[in-house]
């Protein structure tokens, strides 16, 4: 990157970060929480971009890492008194990293769609274990706990408000972004990209491709776990639904919608997806009420599932905009 482009990048980074810091001031409570969710899902999506966009491996098993992050945090918050934010982070990351190491060891032996299916099935193993091991995990009901305070023992302790939690999440996500960006630009990241471009050649040059892939999956799983911890802290529960593969599928959707291989794209994709979901889930009840005001009874319209139009939009993006929204916008800007 030339010096000029670097300068432009950091200026844009600073402006966007500043906007994100002040954004919640103008927003009601609901949207503040919504913004926090976007950041958390964005972090999950960004973590899987390391695999999809940089290494060319599509994981359908990120729900396992995310979910284990949640349950790890739950374990820390339920067993230690007083509940500690840092222990929650530590436990969550350890849980996610352990699972990631396990999954990585097996799944990286396979490529392409075989890798995708294997990660999917692995995540389902953890789902079934968590779902049926009721004594430890609460089974179907999951685990509820109280939110820890933002505290450094001996220094200060602040209970989280919606606003401070948002800033905390923003800080973690921004930090993660910078770390991931660093990783993708490091020699390690270059090897990953060369695996994506031509695996056989990378191996022929002498790189131990499998080991690189294992480490990539572990990094990716670690950040997915971090997102899980944040989600657990925000919502004060851990539930098996979040280990279910549909969450992994959504992470892939965010990536594809936003544009893979950009780190920022997946966050944009998550934002677009969640906003669309919010908008569509309000649109149909609204249309139904408008219709009924005009004497039109449209049974079922109010309950029309937002995932149908959302699914169709996603399919259209895969077919017509393989580079995602960001790639599409970038090309438009360049034209």
């Amino acid at each position: 990157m030339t010096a000029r482009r670097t300068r432009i990048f950091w200026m844009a980074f600073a402006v966007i970060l500043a906007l994100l810091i002040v954004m919640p001031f103008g927003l009601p409570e609901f949207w503040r929480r919504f913004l926090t969710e976007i950041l958390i899902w964005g972090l999950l999506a960004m973590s899987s971009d390391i695999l999809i966009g940089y290494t060319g491996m599509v994981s359908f098993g990120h729900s396992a890492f995310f979910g284990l992050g949640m349950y790890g945090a739950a374990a820390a918050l339920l067993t230690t008194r007083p509940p500690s934010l840092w222990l929650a982070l530590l436990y969550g990351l350890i849980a996610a990293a352990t699972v990631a190491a396990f999954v990585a060891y097996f799944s990286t032996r396979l490529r392409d769609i075989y890798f995708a299916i294997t990660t999917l099935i692995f995540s389902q193993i953890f789902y079934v274990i968590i779902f049926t091991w009721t004594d430890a995990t609460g089974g179907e009901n999951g685990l509820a706990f109280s939110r820890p305070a933002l505290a450094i023992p001996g220094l200060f302790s602040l209970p989280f408000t919606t606003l401070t939690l948002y800033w905390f999440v923003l800080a973690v996500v921004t930090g993660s972004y910078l770390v991931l960006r660093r990783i993708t630009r490091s020699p390690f990241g270059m090897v990953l990209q060369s695996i994506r471009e031509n695996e056989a050649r990378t191996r022929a040059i002498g790189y131990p491709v499998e080991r690189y892939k294992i480490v990539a999956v572990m990094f990716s799983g670690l950040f997915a776990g971090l997102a899980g911890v944040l989600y657990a802290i925000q919502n004060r529960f851990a539930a098996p639904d979040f280990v279910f593969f549909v969450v992994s599928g959504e992470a892939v959707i965010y990536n594809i919608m936003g544009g893979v291989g950009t780190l920022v794209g997946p966050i944009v994709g998550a934002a677009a997806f969640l906003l669309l979901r919010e908008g569509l889930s309000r649109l149909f009840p609204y249309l139904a009420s408008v219709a009924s005001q005009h004497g039109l009874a449209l049974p079922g319209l109010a309950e029309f599932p937002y995932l149908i139009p959302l699914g169709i939009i996603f399919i259209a993006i895969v077919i017509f905009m393989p580079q995602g929204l960001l790639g599409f916008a970038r090309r438009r800007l360049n034209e």
Partner: protein
Amino acid sequence: MLEEFLIQTINGIVVGMILALVASGLTLIFGIMDVVNFAHGELFMLGAYVGVVTLAGTGSFWLALLVATLVVAALGAAIHVTTLRPLLGRDPLNTILVTFGISLVLQNYALWQFGPVARKINEPFTGHFNLFYLEYPWYRLVIALLSAAIIAGLWLFLKYSTYGVWIRATTQDRLMAQAMGIPVPRLLTIVFAIGSGMAAASGVLFGPLVGVNHAMGLDWVLKAFIVVVVGGMGNLVGSIAASIFISLTESYASLWVSPSQAIIVSFVVLILTLLIRPTGLFVPTPK
């Protein structure tokens, strides 16, 4: 104990044959088209629902089976033409993404249309025979036989019909098949329709055993994926053998653990397979 073991053996084979029916559709679609069909379970589920509706309207189970197969086959053809044909020549990973989107749409459509309460398909006949201390329903054996018959039909079709020869030729060398005048795009649509119809038929056949709801496809698609991987992707005989093997191990496991945990056994089978023959199980990655 021996009695229970035998009962579980029969159960395992019955479920294994239905699984084989689901998985052979998936295998057919993968082996020939390089399409990983995430929506296969939803086609199974929609087949069951079309069966429910037809059964309610006509009272005939067999008509319901036929109508469900045809309707879902037509739906499969439409899905293929609109969403998968444009992806011809692109990375097969795109097909997972698109079919994942399709499964979201279909599942939510079913939830909206039919509601969350499970529907029932009545067995076409209710006779039992004595199996040790159990009254074992004849219907279960009939399902196994019917599934076997449908798979045999598929095999004969692939072996002897002109389309069968074309399909096998296309599997081996798509470009050369085209150069021989085989209308590959149309053929792929037909294959997708056949696989969809088979999924729908399994849905109707299996309906009486569990009840029909919008999420019933998920378990099946996962199991079918395991079967397809363990059996060697795109290998029809392998996936039939793997279906029965996996269903049997799950049946036996359910002697000791709850059925919902028994699925972990198939996961373990999968992991062991990957460990022992990490690459040998698969046909070479098509490139």
